[in-house]
């Protein structure tokens, strides 16, 4: 019995290959977009873990030189003798590769290659002539150094590890240490750092949480897009399964009438779908791998640019990833098929024999759908008022988008009913009535189009608003025409003396790390002058904020610090036992951590050991090139230590533009999937259309005009959907800019509108809908008259 039943069930797909293709393609696309994003996230996550595990970044407190320079070997020895459990690290770059030298004997557990690779020979590693660990592509970039390269894929991207002695030799830094890692367990009663080594400063392990949160936000954004794409794909699958089940209702009835128990039938149909889900899932995972491979370099650039996190640009196949891809394909299919199975289980054996119109089913569920949509949209409105974090932000996005998708068919139905009511002439009335009848069959594809367009409008509004704000911000913050970095304090002094009479202003860039209300904060000392007072704009400020800072009692803080610590204007901020009053809050886009600005004099009092090594120089733009040459000739400052303002701006904008390449790519993919959904819906509905259109043909409409009508119908439905997608997209943009962005990055962006972009997007959607409808319309126009006649001879 099982074999015969399965044969009958499967034969449906062989006879309807297009439906099978729709199902497999929809599921494969959904899985591909989802697993592609997951692959990127998994790769990034593995890179963070590798960085933390191999370098101790963010894990351990560190000792660094107060003047930002290197640490003499003698200082390290003195600390060890005093009982400090510290481990030396030397770092530098060789052929673009970050070379990190560790001392494996003193490094805290879990650091270095000892746990990275099983093939490590400790003696070789310690010999100083021994082994260098890293990813193959990094090892290839190293010159011949006489050491044994050992491939270790788990070492942080862009980095090689080796013994500290070999690293010092390679980097030409004999006897010098870059930083000291402080082992968590320290003996009690050891002397303080100030007593043993006053030139060192201790950096408390930080950044991991903060940076982790930020990168988590980025990945959450990607995941949200992956989910959105997956949802669009599942719409396709749901449509395909729904239609397939609908078309197989008579067969199911016949099978049951011939003695196949309902339970066996459902088990077989579930097994059939599960196999398809696994096949489509496997295809999807493979496609996802391709997508991830293409997007990963841009993601890596984004993370590097935004957060300074290094992520490998190459993808590895991780079992967890492809297994989860298959699982999501199975889960998605189960989700998409749930309602179809429910209807099948509830279908009486002696249900009406005629093929049930889709509109009847939709009519029964319309009420429930309307209530659900209303509840979700009301929830979205409520969340818009109170949302203030990532979870509530994404809940807002979810309720808004799902509510709108559910409401779409109901809104379109009302619009079409109104159009029918307003229309004059029998053809127009028939057209609107017929379009309305098609709506249930197309509603899933239209919902997919709605979501894709809304996501496009929302994200492009966010990105464009961000870019506009960012450009203005760069103009404000990068006011100096030339930026110069001195090698040491002596060169810095020489530079300031040399430039004093040759430039309009010298603006030292000096900073120190501190904590404000437990938040890691960078404090800057600014030489207040027209560059600041004329160029800076504040989100909010007291009267004459710069004057208050210059007077010594005022402090300026960035938006991130204000939001995360709850600081507001005129609040007090203690720094190094001195209390300051917040005089202004400024936008600081792209900076992951808190920042505060004091006057240069106050800063010097608080941090007497910090010397500015970087300077902004104000001079006429046309003098920049000549002055750079002078600095090189007279002070020996290398070209690499000088950057033009234009260069920095371009670099910043390049970083920015790459930042959103990924979301743009996902947007385009989502729109393409929506177009595919429309195509597949129209194709699968085409068979059902013949009986509906045959009477119109019999009454005098040509097949060609019926085809044209089908095309116009698709475009008109896309127009209506686009009209609804625009405000939805703007609502999405608002939620992204005002809720999600604030939670993710700590800053709120002003929202700008870009009507030309929206018009172009609307045009794309119409073209996509027209292209999707072209083939089905052509097929309909080419339907042989004999097929149309069969409708009347009851032989279909």
């Amino acid at each position: 019995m099982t074999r015969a039943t399965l044969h009958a069930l499967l034969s449906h797909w062989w006879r309807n290959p297009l439906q099978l293709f729709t199902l497999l393609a929809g599921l494969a696309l959904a899985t591909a977009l989802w697993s592609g994003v997951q692959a990127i996230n998994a790769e990034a996550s593995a890179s963070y873990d590798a960085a933390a595990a191999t370098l101790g970044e963010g894990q351990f407190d560190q000792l660094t030189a107060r003047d930002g320079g290197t640490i003499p070997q003698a200082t390290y020895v003195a600390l060890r003798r005093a009982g400090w459990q510290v481990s030396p690290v030397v770092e530098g770059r060789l052929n673009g590769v970050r070379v990190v030298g560790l001392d494996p004997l003193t490094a805290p557990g879990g650091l270095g290659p000892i746990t990275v690779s099983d093939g490590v020979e400790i003696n070789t590693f310690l010999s100083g002539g021994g082994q260098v660990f890293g990813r193959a592509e990094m090892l290839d970039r190293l010159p011949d150094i006489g050491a044994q390269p050992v491939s270790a894929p788990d070492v942080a991207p862009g980095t090689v590890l080796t013994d500290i002695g070999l690293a010092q030799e390679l980097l030409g830094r004999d006897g010098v240490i870059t930083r000291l890692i402080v082992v968590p367990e320290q003996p009690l009663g050891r002397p303080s750092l100030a007593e043993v080594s006053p030139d060192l400063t201790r950096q408390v392990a930080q950044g991991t949480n903060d940076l982790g949160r930020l990168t988590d936000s980025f990945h959450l954004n990607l995941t949200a897009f992956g989910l959105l794409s997956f949802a669009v794909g599942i719409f396709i699958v749901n449509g395909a399964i729904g239609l397939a089940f609908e078309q197989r209702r008579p067969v199911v009835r016949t099978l049951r009438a011939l003695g196949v128990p309902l339970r066996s039938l459902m088990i077989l149909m579930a097994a059939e779908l599960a196999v398809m889900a696994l096949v489509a899932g496997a295809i999807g995972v493979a496609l996802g791998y391709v997508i991830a491979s293409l997007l990963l370099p841009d993601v890596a650039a984004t993370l590097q640019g935004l957060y300074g996190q290094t992520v490998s640009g190459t993808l590895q196949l991780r079992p967890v990833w492809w297994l989860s891809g298959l699982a999501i394909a199975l889960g998605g299919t189960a989700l998409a098929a749930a309602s179809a199975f429910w209807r099948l289980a509830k279908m009486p054996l002696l249900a009406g024999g005629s093929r049930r119109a889709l509109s009847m089913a939709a009519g029964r569920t319309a009420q429930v759908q309307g209530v659900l949509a209303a509840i979700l949209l009301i929830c979205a409105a409520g969340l818009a008022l109170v949302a203030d974090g990532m979870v509530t932000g994404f809940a807002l996005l979810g309720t808004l988008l799902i509510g709108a998708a559910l409401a779409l068919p109901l809104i379109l139905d009302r619009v079409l009913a109104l159009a029918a009511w307003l229309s004059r002439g029998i053809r127009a009335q028939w057209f609107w009535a017929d379009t309305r009848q098609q709506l249930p069959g197309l509603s899933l594809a239209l919902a997919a189009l709605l979501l894709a367009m809304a996501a496009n409008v929302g994200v492009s509004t966010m990105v464009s608003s961000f870019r506009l704000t960012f450009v203005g911000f760069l103009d404000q913050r990068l006011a100096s025409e030339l930026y110069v970095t001195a090698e040491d304090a002596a060169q810095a002094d020489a530079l300031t003396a040399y430039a004093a009479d040759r430039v309009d202003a010298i603006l030292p860039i000096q900073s120190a790390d501190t904590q404000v209300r437990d938040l890691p904060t960078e404090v800057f000392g600014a030489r207040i002058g027209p560059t600041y007072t004329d160029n800076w704009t504040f989100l909010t400020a007291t009267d004459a904020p710069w004057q208050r800072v210059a007077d010594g009692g005022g402090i300026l803080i960035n938006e991130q610090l204000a939001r995360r610590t709850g600081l507001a204007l005129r609040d007090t901020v203690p720094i190094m036992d001195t209390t300051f009053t917040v005089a202004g809050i400024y936008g600081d886009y792209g900076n992951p951590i808190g920042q505060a600005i004091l006057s240069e004099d106050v800063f010097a009092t608080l941090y007497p050991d910090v010397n500015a090594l970087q300077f902004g120089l104000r001079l006429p733009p046309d003098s920049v090139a000549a002055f750079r040459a002078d600095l090189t000739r007279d002070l020996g400052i290398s070209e690499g230590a000088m950057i033009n303002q234009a260069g920095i701006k371009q670099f910043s904008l390049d970083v920015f533009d790459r930042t959103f390449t990924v979301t743009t790519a996902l947007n385009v993919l989502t729109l393409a999937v929506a177009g595919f959904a429309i195509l597949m819906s129209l194709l699968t509905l085409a068979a059902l259309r013949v009986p509906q259109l045959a009477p119109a043909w019999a009454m005098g409409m040509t097949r060609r005009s019926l085809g044209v009508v089908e095309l116009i119908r698709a475009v008109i439905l896309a127009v209506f959907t686009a009209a609804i997608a625009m405000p939805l997209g703007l609502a999405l943009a608002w939620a992204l800019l005002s809720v999600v962005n604030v939670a993710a990055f700590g800053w709120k962006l002003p929202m700008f509108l870009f009507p030309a972009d929206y018009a172009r997007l609307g045009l794309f959607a119409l073209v996509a809908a027209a292209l999707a409808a072209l083939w089905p319309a052509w097929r309909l126009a080419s339907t042989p008259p004999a097929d149309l006649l069969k409708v009347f001879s009851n032989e279909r």
Partner: protein
Amino acid sequence: MLLTVTDLHKGYASADGQITVLDGVSLSLNAGETLALTGESGSGKSTLLHLIGGLDSAYRGQILLDGVDLTALNDADRAALRRGTVGVVFQQFNLIPSLKVADNISFQARLADRHDAAWCAQLANRMGLDAQLDKYPEQLSGGQQQRVALARTLAPRPKLVLADEPTGNLDEETAATVLALMLDLVRDTGAGLLMVTHSQALAGQMQRQIHLRKGRIA
């Protein structure tokens, strides 16, 4: 006795209240016997047929088919009954559109694990379907489709054939051909035949006739 129906009652709830479809129907049928069930539309003919075939349930009274009381059967048992004991010929043919004619003919026999290739071939031959075996149902005429449905019903050699207006969708000439084939084959297999029909001419070819009126035997 192959089939005994005793005091069968069946009703439906509707917006206008309870509607009685069958009101104390009793009948019997021997193996190899043919019986026509006639009556106006809504007289309960199809409902009676569905109850006897195990396609419908929830009734009052008793149906004994081949010694089995259908009242006591659950869904799975009724499905087994439909597979092995009963064969139903529908007015709408109800072929499986995605299976070829040959597969449609052998389908129910395979479900019942009683597939006999020689018997299926013989059925196809007698139905004049030899040239159509590789075609799909949609490529056949209505008469041919009904012959396929008939062959499918007889392939597992059911003890009772139930036919619900089997020629209702066919022209007069084709209907006569199909009916003649059905009677021949039923006689050859020794099955009982209970046929619902509007046509007195068709009913006249059965050994016995029962007329239903408003749920009762007239």
